[in-house]
């Protein structure tokens, strides 16, 4: 038997389709066989009593002078009741009626001594038994018939009860199959639940303790893949850390020496050339930092299970504190507007994100301007926001500034065009949405990072993250 089932049909449905119709068919066939068997028994029983009546009638036959005489039945007919009518007829060897109902012809079916037949007498349905009695005067034929209302009633009863039983059995079987299939698939559904409930960046191995043998290789293969990815993330992080060390240490030395050289009286007269060098050096330092930050923010270097409950308030405070001196030097008013806000994430990366936003704001706001960092939204809709009243980003440029290495036309400063790309990358990792608008009164820029609702992270359980 080849059933055409779509390979994507669920196993649940597949089992039901494969099991239920044949089972139902089998049940119906069984019911039919039961019915037939019961009918045979019933008919045999009723025929037996009809036969008894025929035999009794035959016993009353007498042969006088080579002629057969019959006595009319003197005792009540067996099974006599009001509903049933009995008929009889006795015929001589010469096929002349000896006694009884002339309309009741015998059955010719079978040459045996006892023959049964169904027939009609007037408009009554009857059952006839024909009994051939050998006498000294030849073979007499005794026919006894009864109407069939009791047989009909019994047949009806058997039919009804068989079908009722059958119906109950079919239903019970369907229910058992359904429950069984459901129950049998439970471990599979548990694995599905485990996979569904994880966030896409989570690479913890799947629990294998309660996995059925059939699915085990699949789960093992998945866990193997997770391990490979974890390993890749580990080595990527290691690479970033090594690269950071290899790049930053010499840069630190060069920056330091250049700074010293600028202050050195021996370098008098070289100030402008040293300034060019220092400027170039700080560009190199900045670019190295940004590239490392971007590499650190790569999805492949980050696993969701490294995310932690992160309170944004102290994070904002740290970033502002780090930038106070710079804002003072640039004659900018850097301030905060802090409300409770917590997210599930990497504090380090979010600090990178905010650092870049503040860095941009300080870069693109002329002296005398204001830069305000906000956080709030509690844990239901936590956000970070940086607003400045500086140059602003023209609406047409707002999507392009998010691209790597893109810089606003005519922009100056140390930027390498990675700031907002880093912001985007880190936001994406946290499923946060970044929106760029004009600041209050249409001046400057307001960049808002809206994080998904924070349900708290508990060890060993998956954080239910809201898809953005």
């Amino acid at each position, binding site marked *: 038997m080849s059933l055409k089932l779509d390979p994507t049909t669920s196993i649940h449905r597949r089992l039901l389709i494969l099991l239920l119709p044949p089972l139902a068919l089998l049940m119906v066939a069984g019911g039919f066989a039961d019915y037939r068997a019961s009918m045979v028994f019933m008919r045999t029983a009723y025929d037996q009593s009809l036969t008894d009546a025929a035999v009794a009638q035959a016993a009353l036959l007498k042969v006088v002078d080579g002629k057969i005489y019959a006595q009319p039945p003197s005792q009540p007919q067996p099974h006599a009741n009001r509903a049933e009518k009995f008929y009889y007829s006795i015929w001589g060897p010469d096929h002349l009626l000896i006694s009884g109902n002339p309309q009741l012809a015998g059955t010719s079916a079978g040459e045996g001594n006892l023959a049964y037949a169904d027939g009609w007498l007037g408009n009554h349905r009857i059952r006839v038994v024909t009994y051939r009695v050998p006498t000294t005067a030849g073979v007499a034929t005794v026919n006894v018939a009864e109407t069939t209302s009791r047989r009909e009633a019994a047949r009806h009863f058997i039919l009804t009860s068989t079908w009722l039983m059958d119906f109950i059995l079919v239903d019970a079987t369907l229910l058992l199959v359904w429950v069984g299939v459901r129950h049998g698939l439970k471990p599979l559904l548990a694995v599905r639940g485990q996979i569904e409930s994880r966030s896409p960046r989570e690479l913890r191995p799947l629990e294998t303790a309660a996995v059925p043998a059939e699915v085990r290789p699949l789960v093992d293969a998945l866990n193997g893949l997770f391990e490979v990815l974890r390993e890749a993330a580990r080595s990527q992080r290691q690479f970033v850390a090594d690269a950071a060390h290899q790049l930053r240490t010499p840069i630190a030395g060069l920056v330091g020496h250049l700074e010293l050289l600028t202050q050195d009286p021996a370098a008098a007269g070289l100030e402008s050339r040293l300034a060019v060098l220092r400027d170039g050096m700080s560009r190199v330092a900045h670019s190295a930092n940004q590239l490392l930050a971007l590499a650190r923010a790569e999805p492949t270097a980050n696993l969701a299970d490294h995310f932690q409950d992160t309170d944004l308030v102290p994070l904002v405070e740290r970033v502002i504190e780090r930038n*106070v001196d710079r804002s003072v030097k640039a004659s900018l008013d850097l301030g905060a507007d802090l409300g409770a806000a917590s997210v599930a994430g990497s504090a380090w990366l979010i600090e990178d994100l905010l650092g870049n936003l503040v860095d941009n704001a300080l870069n693109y706001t002329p002296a005398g301007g204001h830069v305000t960092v906000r956080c709030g939204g509690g844990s239901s809709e936590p956000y970070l926001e940086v607003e400045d009243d500086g140059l602003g980003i023209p609406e047409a440029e707002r999507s392009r500034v998010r691209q790597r290495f893109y810089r606003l036309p005519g922009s100056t400063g140390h930027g390498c065009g990675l700031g907002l790309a880093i912001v985007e990358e880190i936001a994406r990792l946290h499923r946060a949405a970044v929106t760029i608008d004009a600041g209050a009164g249409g001046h400057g820029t307001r960049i808002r990072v809206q994080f998904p609702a924070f349900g708290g992270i508990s060890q060993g359980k998956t954080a239910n993250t809201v898809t953005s």
Partner: protein
Amino acid sequence: MRILVVEDNDLVADAIARGLGLAGFAVDRAPSAEVAATALAAEHFDLAVVDIGLPGEDGLTFVRRLRSQGATLPVLILTARETVAMRVEALDLGADDFLMKPFEQSELAARCRALIRRANLNTNGQLNFGRLRIDVAGRQLRIDDKQVELTGREWLVLECLAFSAGRVVSKERLQQTIARWDQAMTPNAVEVYVSRVRAKLADAALIRTVRGLGYRLDEPEA
């Protein structure tokens, strides 16, 4: 003021040593934790600047060992690597501050000064900040050797800011500090006291307002 710089990279160590030297510190160099341990055991230093990525024993292990041996000198950690846990770990281990490479020489010198200042405050209750001489134990403030009178609450404000000189002190913290004296302290009252202290310090030191966060005691701008 004597500083031990524990850094294996010559280029960096040389720059740090010269820079801190120009800033008025006496500087000794150690290329490894082992050499540094010998130096610290033999002589007195006011501060150690320790790179994390040392050959042999790494910087964090070195600091942990120092602290477990009871050394109290302030330690500033330098690092080029950044991992999520590193800063937290460094500070937990007993490092007093943390600076990421590359850094400006002036930033490093300022941090060193702040750390030594705090260490002095802890050991002898004295805090020198620019032209300010603050005697915490004796509750005396001198500016250029001239005594300045402060009320009790003004003194608490100055003390709180001076303890974290160069760092932002939140308005809430100031409020809590003063509220021990006066339960009915409002954020506005904090501003009042800060401006009074600011007036008394005049041009000897600067109390900078960081909008929405708090205040920071700075040396006056040149």
